């Protein structure tokens, strides 16, 4: 993985693409999860594993939370969480 990036910057400045950048039906490969260990573990158990492909599916009517297809199942994440999942 890359050098340590300031978490705040990585999504605030759009230097790295996060899950929120995916359009409906678009896929991307997860690079890393910029969240504390426990939360990252939980997301990984649900299938958000680095190196795995993630597809953006439906969303709630307002566009948040959004549903992602990962590892054979569908999981909804709020935007506030999805910005911490960085794509390759």
């Amino acid at each position, binding site marked *: 993985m890359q050098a340590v990036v300031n978490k705040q910057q990585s999504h605030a400045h759009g230097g790295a693409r996060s899950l929120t950048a995916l359009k409906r039906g678009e896929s991307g490969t997860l690079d890393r999860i910029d*969240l*504390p260990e*426990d*939360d990252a*573990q*939980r*997301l*990984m*158990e*649900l*299938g958000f*594993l*680095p*190196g795995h492909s993630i597809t953006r*599916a*439906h*969303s*709630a*009517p*307002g566009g*948040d*939370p959004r*549903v992602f297809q990962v*590892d*054979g*199942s*569908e*999981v*909804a*994440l*709020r935007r*506030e*969480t999805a910005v*911490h999942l960085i794509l390759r």
Partner: protein
Amino acid sequence: MDDCHGAPTATLPQPPAAGKQHIVAIVGPPNSGKSTLFNRLTGLRQKVANFPGVTVEHRMGRARLDHHREIYLVDLPGVYSLHPRTEDEKVTHDVLAGTMEGLPKPDAVILILDSTNLSRHLSLAAPILGLGLPTLVVLNMADDLHGRGGEVDPAELSKQLGTPVALISASRGSGIEKITEFLSGATLQQLPRPPLVELPVLQNVPKIRDWAANIGRRTKYRAPAPPVWTRRLDGVFLHPVTGLVVFLLVIIGVFQTIFAGARPLMDAVQAAIEASGRWIEATMPDSPLRSLIVDGIWSGVGSVIVFLPQILLLFLFIGILEDSGYLARAALIADRTMAKIGLQGKSFIPLLSAYACAVPAIMAARTIENKRDRTATILIAPFMTCSARLPVYTLVIAAFIPEKPLLGIFFGTRAAALLGLYVIGFLAAIVTARLLKSTVLKSTRAPFVLEMPPYRWPTVQSLALRLIDRSRVFLRRAGTVILAVSVVLWVLSNLPLENGKAPEIGNSYAGMVGHAVEPVIQPLGFNWKIGIGLITSLAAREVIVGTLGTLYGIEGTSESMNLQSALRHELTPGGAAALLVFFAFAMQCMSTLAVVRRETGGWTWPVIQFVYMTLFAYVFSFAANRLISLWF
């Protein structure tokens, strides 16, 4: 089913005698079919139990094997790993480790996995097999797997994992015999040896996931095609326009069912209770015992049992929504709005249900895994205008507010007042939620995740068992706590005897209590009679109507015109407004307190809730009394 009732205090249906009875734990990820399998194996021989000190519930049940032998099964909370991070995971972890108080270490484990999502679900096999307990790996949803063109070889997987593997369909019942076989083995001590498989050394998620993928490849697992129907249905149910329409229709449906649809059933139950009460009255000679049975027990317990149809209908609805998979979509749609008050999408249905009755609503909050969100939902639910408030609202509004049209013939002053009461209850809930969520129940930053299970047909068995289970819980409470309070209330209003007869209510112990609280409630514009009503309505809100009826010496509440004019004598307009506000905010409901205690695992929260709501009600009733008194 009979011995399941046992003593109401028992946590488990008879503690299994050491060395004779065997306990087998059912473990698996959420939605893998644990409860379906458990229900199939145990049927009605099951009950909900709570471990001491934790609020996570589990089910214990007995499965009958051949030769009249039985085995105890435990249905544990769904988990993806054994890392004890959430309370659910901790319970599952502790039970399997044998460190859970009140339950001996299980003799064997049934690990149930969704075969349509095997590569991910197999990850749980690593930590479970690592425990060294005899384990049967059950691959569930065989029908769905094959229906979507997936393939798995249980024999090969068994070789790879070094433990028996059964491919079944829990909802259809195919392959169940392999489980009974395993369980028979477990009772006969011919347990398969702990597996000698090489497990991933480092138990971190990516490593385990690689291990699972590897096993999947070696056993030629072919994942099924994506669930076409689920995608199609989501195209409608999560569509920006049709999704909202369906959502609203479902809400209106739930609301309509529990509010209007339950009415005829509730009326029928009410009529049956009244008829049987009259029958007892007619058959028994006039005596204090008759009065105790008819006026005390029958009307007290009866006023609660009336809610049974409503509760059952609500749970039928929630059962269908949950088992079909729509509940997750509804939670997704509601999430944004609920987040604004610090809650989350899953709080939505419980709060909606609370408009019928807080009791089932609080039980429905079980679908919220996040403990803080669940507690917050439970704590604000009683602010929603439940149907028990309606008799009080109707009476006071009819007595004090003259009907004048506001918006044509459909919306008059009385409807506006009623609507206003709904609104202030809702606002109180929001304020309280924000208060709680920004202080004691502030969410840990744990991200909100919501799995969208594929849509499935709910099974009749699962729905029926839910209803039976809820009725048992509800009726048991009506038969214990509520019975006791009804008797106490009756005794207090019929003692001390005057010349060997029941006293005037004003001179009874209840009357004395009313006089005693009068100074406290006088600032609200209430006198001692209202005081008695407030106290008796601690049992249930609508009880105040009956109490006031008795106090004003009016036979039956059907003569509500008389009760209305009596109230107009008794209360100033300020006092009437205060009474309405008091009932909007105060926690006048024993059943709710009892269920909050049950669901939060102790008296702390119900006590806090009671004190908070009563103070809240007091302050605002006081303000209402003063404000209205300025005008009139």
